[in-house]
Every structure is written in C-alpha cells, then in structure tokens.
C-alpha cells in the first residue's frame, strides 16, 4: 500500500472514539428516531445499480421492487454517503489515506482479494436477511436493548471466532 501523506497520526484512544460514536448514535435516536445504519443504504444502492441494468425485472421483484423507481431516495442512503464523507475528512485530517490492498506482509494478494469479495457477498446477503449489519442491528439494536439485536451481535462474534483460524493466512506477517 502506498501512503498518501507522510507520518499518519496514530489512531484515537478507542474509548474516546467509542464515546463519540455512542453520542452520534444517541443523536440519531433523538433526531431521526432510528439508529445508525450502513447496509440499508448499500442495499438501496444495489437496487439502483441492478435497476440500471434490468429495470423491468427489478421492478417486478418483491424485495427491491417494493422500493419503487427511486430506491436512492431514502435516509440511509444519505447516511452512508455521510459516512464516506466523514471518513474522508477524518482520513485526510489524520493523514491516514493509503492506497492499495491492505493485507499481512506475506499474505497473498489473490487470497486477500478473494476473501474480501466472498466475505462481502456473505455480509451483503446476511445483512439483508437480518435487516441490518453491525451498525444497524448489532450496535443500534443492542443499545435499544432489543433481544434480537443482542442475539445477532453474539452470533456475529461467534461466527467470526469460529472461522477466524480458517482465513488467517491473509494476515500473515
């Protein structure tokens, strides 16, 4: 990977970052009346993209079709765009932009890309099934003390820990 800026700043104190994230989540509850979310916006973008290619088919599908002709007209899409913008600001400000594929020093590139892609497919699918991802279900839902969200959170970590050893090679240093 190629660092865009010299001397990137160290990461923040994770607890301080967590407080900041928690307050953002609280603001979302009090202003929007809903928690944070990322996969929701992503799904809408997916509907839009598939709609560009196969508009009649998408309109006829039960899941994407229910979102109508303008799936992007949805608050979570704007939130996801905001995440990108905020991430960009912060990365520039902290000089933490590095272009490339992040992996272990001896981790094979193709392996990393394969895992990134297939992991993405699994995550994308599972997030739709659960109606949320780590932000929407695990974090926001658990903050609301929703039993289902807490169960989801626990299972995410269970699934992760169970398969971590199998995919360790990409991070080898």
């Amino acid at each position, binding site marked *: 990977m190629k660092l865009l800026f010299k001397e990137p700043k160290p*990461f923040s104190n994770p*607890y301080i970052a*967590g*407080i*900041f*994230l*928690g307050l*953002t*989540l609280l603001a979302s*509850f*009090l*202003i*929007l009346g*809903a928690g944070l979310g990322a996969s929701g*916006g*992503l799904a809408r973008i997916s*509907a839009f*993209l598939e709609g560009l290619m196969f508009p009649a088919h*998408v309109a006829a*599908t039960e899941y*994407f079709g229910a979102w109508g002709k303008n799936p992007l007209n949805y*608050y*979570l899409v704007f939130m996801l*765009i*905001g*995440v990108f*913008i*905020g*991430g960009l*600001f912060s*990365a520039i400000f902290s000089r*933490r932009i*590095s*272009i*490339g594929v992040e992996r272990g020093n001896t981790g094979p590139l193709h392996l990393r*890309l394969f895992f*990134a*892609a297939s*992991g993405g*497919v*699994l*995550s*994308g699918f599972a997030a739709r*099934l*659960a109606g949320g991802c780590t*932000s929407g279900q695990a974090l926001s839902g*658990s903050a609301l*003390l*929703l*039993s*289902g*969200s807490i169960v989801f959170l626990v*299972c995410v970590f*269970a*699934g*992760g820990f169970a*398969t*971590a050893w199998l*995919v360790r090679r990409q*991070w080898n240093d």
Partner: protein
Amino acid sequence: MISTFFGADSLGSLAALAASLVIGIFFGISLEKAGFGSSKRLAGIFYFRDMAVLKVMFTALVVAMMGLSIAIWAGLIDPATQIYYMTTYYGTYIFAGLIFGVGFVMSGWCPGTAAVGMASGKMDAVVFMAGAVIGSILFNEIYPLIKPIVTWGQSGLAAYGQPGLAFLNESLGIPRRVVVLGITLIAVACFWGSEFIEAGKGMKSYFKSPFLARFSLVLILTAGILFLIPEKKFSASESRLSTAAFAPSVVPSGPDPVSDRALLTDVASAADHVAPEELAAALYNRDPGVLVVDIRPLDEYNAFHIRGAVQVNMPDLPAFVSARTDKTRIVLYSNGMVHPSQSRDQLYRSGFRNVFILTDGLDGFIDRCLKPVSLRSPPLSAEAARQINAWRVFFYGHDQAASAAPDSVFQGLKLPGMIDTGRLADNLTRPDIKIIDSRSQPDYNTRHIPGSFSLSPEHFRGNVDGVPSMLMPAEILAAKLSLMGIQPKDLIVLVYDGDKMRDATLIAMGLERIGHTRYAVLDGGFDKWTAEGKPTGNALPQVQRSAYLVKHGTDMFSVSYVKVLADVQNKSTLILDVRPEDYFTGKKSDEARAGHIPGAINRVFSADLAKIDAFIGFKPLKELTDIYAKLIPSLDTPVVVHCRTGHQASQTFFLLKHLLGYRNVFWYDAGWTEWAARTELPVDK
C-alpha cells in the same frame, strides 16, 4: 417532548435526509478516528491481536444506551412512539448473525467500516463493497425462496403495539435497570480484559491506567444512578407500559420475590392503570394491541358495555389471558375498580405482565369520556368537545349522541314534558323508548300500547321511616328500572287513562328523583291513543335487564316537614295544598287532624284537568298560566306543593315546573298524612 422524524413519519423529508447525511458524517469520523478504516485492525479482534472493535463498539453501545435512558427518564422522548424498533426474529438473526460473522472475519469489513475504508484508499474495501452489492442482489433474487427464514422464530412478546418486539429485560424477565447496570459492568470487565490481553502482547495498553480507571468509574457510577431511578420513570406517561410489563408465558405459580416487589411498585405508581381517556383513544383508533375485558356478569355486559369489550368471568381470566400474550394491553374493567384490581394482581403473580385495570372503572369511563359536553364544567375547548362527541357516537351508537347534537327525531320536544300521540306512534319501535303504563293490570292485560310496561305508581312507594306512601329512595327506583331493562339514555313515556294523570306524574317523581329527565307524559293518555285508532296489543315486552347507574344529588325538590315548618314560620315560601276544598277547610278528614298548614293556599288538582272529546287532559296552558299567575307572584317564587300523600301533588308539580315554567317548585311528599300525625305541628282550619 422531542418529535423525531420517525415519530412524525417524515423520514423521507428533505430535512430528514439532510440530518441523516450530517449524522452519517459524524458516524464516519468516529469510525475513522477509531482506526476502522483498516481491515487489518478490524479483523484483529478475532485473533486477539487488536481488541479495538470490542472497546469501541461496547463503549458506543453503553453510552447510547445510558444516554437514551436519561432522555426517556427526563421525559424528553416517548419511547413508545418516537423510535423505530426492529422486530425480533430469533431464528433469522441467529442464522444471519453467524453468516455475517463469517463474512466479517473473512473480509475484515462490514458495510459501514468499508465506506470509511474506501475513503481511506483501501482497495480491499472497494472489492468488499462490490461483493456486498452482489450479496444484496442475490438476496433479492432468491427472496421468494427464502421468505420463510426472513421472519423465522418471531418472539412471542410484544411491546408498544408491535408484535414480536422483544426487549432484553422482558425476554430475561429482569428489570430494565438491572439489565443496564449488568451490561455496563460486563462492558467494563471486557475493557479491562482487552487491555490485559493487549498488554500481554506487548502493545500499548491502558491496563491499570488512570484513564481506564476513571472511565470505568464514570460508566459504573452513571449506570448506578440510573439503577436507583424507579422503573416507572421509563414510561412516557401513566398509561404507557413500563418495560417490565410483559412476560413470555405463564410462570409456574409460587411466591416470586422479584414479582412482589415489582407488582407493588406498579400498584404504588399506578403503572397497573390505564386512564379512561387513554382507553377511549386506543379503542377509537382501533389499536390492535389493546383488548378490553368486561369482568361483570353477562347480563350487565349485555345491558351496556364499552364498545369492543369482551365479557369474561373472573375465574376464566387466567385461561383467557394466557391465550393472548400477544396483546400489548389487556384492560380489565367493571363498574368500579376492586374486582379488576384483584384479578390483575393475581394475573401478575402468575406471570402475566400485559394486564391492566381501567382507572375509575366503567362509572369513571362514562363520566370522563362520555358525559355530554353541555353538562361539563368548566366548559371544554372546541377540540375536546369534538373528541367527546366523537367518542359518544362511537361508544353509544349513532342515536345516543343526542344531547350535544339534538336528536332530530325529538327536535322541539321539551323534556320533561308532554309527548304527542302522533309522535309516539311514529317512533314506537325505537329500542331507546320505554313506555310505562300506569293503568290497572286487567286493563293493561286486555290491551296496551305495544312494548309498554305495566307499572302501578304504588310500586314506586312504600313506608319510609314510619311514614306510609312515601316515594322510594333512588337506589330502589334504579333497581326497579334495571329489572325493566331501562337505561339512563332511554326516553320514558308515561301513559295514564281517564283522569289518572296523577298516576303518570307520580311515577315521574320517581324519575325526577334519580335524575332521569328524559321522560314525557303521553298527551291525552291511553284514551286519546285508542280514540285515534292507534295500534295496541297484549304481548308482554321483551326485556334485557340493565344496570341503571344510580346518580346522587339529583333530588333537589323533595322537602321534609322541618323545611316546611320553617317556611311557615318565616313566610318565605308559598305553600300550595292541592287537596279538595272540604279537606283543606277541615270539613272532611281522613287523617289524624283536620285542616291545613297555616298560611297555605288551596287549589285542587282536579281543577287543572278537563274533558276533551274522548279523553281527559290538562286544560289549555294559556288558561292555566293565567290562573296560577294570580296565585303565585312570580315564576321564581318558591312554591311547596303537597296533598295527603304526594300523589295528587305530583300532578301539580309536573304542571307548574315543566309546563308553566315555574323555577322553584318543591314537593312535600309526606304531606298531610305526616303533618296531621305530628301533633307538635300547627294546623289551621
């Protein structure tokens, strides 16, 4: 009170989209600052190499959880209506969670962090996002096949009218504040554990650092303070459910210390109540999660019940409630609150947390939600009046909202007053008209107005405190009306024959006593009815017994001998003796002494009646107005009417008060029977 975009149903508005963008920006900044623009850092937790995910997520969770608790406690936000909650599908979430976890550790990303990763230049984030798009599309394509697992294992709980909405405190059956404190303590333990692990790996660690110590302390103290706040404070209003109000199903019986405390806390804070207005609104708006249960006997229920209520006898309640744990609120009511309270407490101990009682019972519901607008003081705002009228129409049915909007059928009919035979004939089949026939039973049995009841005025009288032929107290009169299936909203028509107008008016005195002013005497009585060829029959009327509510304080016209004596002594009131002249003067007597009350004037009741064709009725009102104007100085002059037992006087009372407009008419029920018998009272001849 905060109104969120979700609560105002305006998440699609431009303002909401803009707010989401801004919130997203702060979301992105938080993630990036935490270093979550790096998949290596993110995946680190699964190898105990970098515990950042645990620290950041858990901190955020605890901060948001406690912040929201404080906002709810401070009354800033109503959790029932202003926040979007996802339904709990245990099967779906377990399955999806595991798959997502695999995807997470595999890729080192989740959608939110990947957005930050993309912004940080990470190509693996771009590849992840592309994969996630494919995954989403895949979901859409096979959606019809996998629909069953999308809503798999829905929780049996419900909250805020949303089935399947399960909160952790309900699912575990422990109070919310215990859950909050517990999660905080677990979080702090995890933080110390994470720091310990990282210190062990030689990384920079906060283990035993002043920062971590202070941070932990602040979290625990805040959770501790929230722990001390009573549970009820986390309900937005009295009738909103405390989140401790549900349990999945029946718990085996046996004393449950946690429940007793919780139960009594609920009782003390009235969290076990639902206010009448709250219930009326919920039923009017057809809230599917609300079920109202009438626990009175079936006949009372049939006479009148709150619209939408089902009738369940108390012993059947446990079985009934256990089959309906999906209901958000099951509200019990009877006339008062005692039986519902007892039932509810027992059900609570058995583990049912969705049962409540109606504050003030049916009596209170009728008084607070259904009493006519014109009878309320202070007067209601226009909006409140509309609400009451809407509820009256809803709960009483279309033809009972009469007093605020005059019933067009009876327009122009002054009640109490006289009703024309034609008008009665036109409305004979209305269920809210009850005809009482005071003729002799043989006459009634031969034929009577269809649907009418045979009732002698003597049935409304008896010996009270030693004085014979006295009008019965309100409770007894109401009980008699209940046996005839009469309700306060009914228009009662009183039918006499011959010159026995006084029989009808004596029954009317009973109606006046219980405040039933919706009555009218049939003009001309039964004789006019038959002379006009109107329908008669001899079938007995169909009756569904009612529960006529006794009102108190409605008899402002009955006076005792004590009051009459005072009137005699200070000459402040006109005493009108309606007995025949011979009895007034003492020439004839059928009582202990002969004569009249000192200062009284005499006008015999029968002089007010006249024969008109085939029937006998009042003389023309113009004529009577002039006659009485000579006897009584003004319409406001206090007048006490009496006779021997109150029977004849009832006719004059009716005439003066309801037909001629005198405003201060009183009735000395005990009459000459008592006055003559009490030798200490003065008598004139």
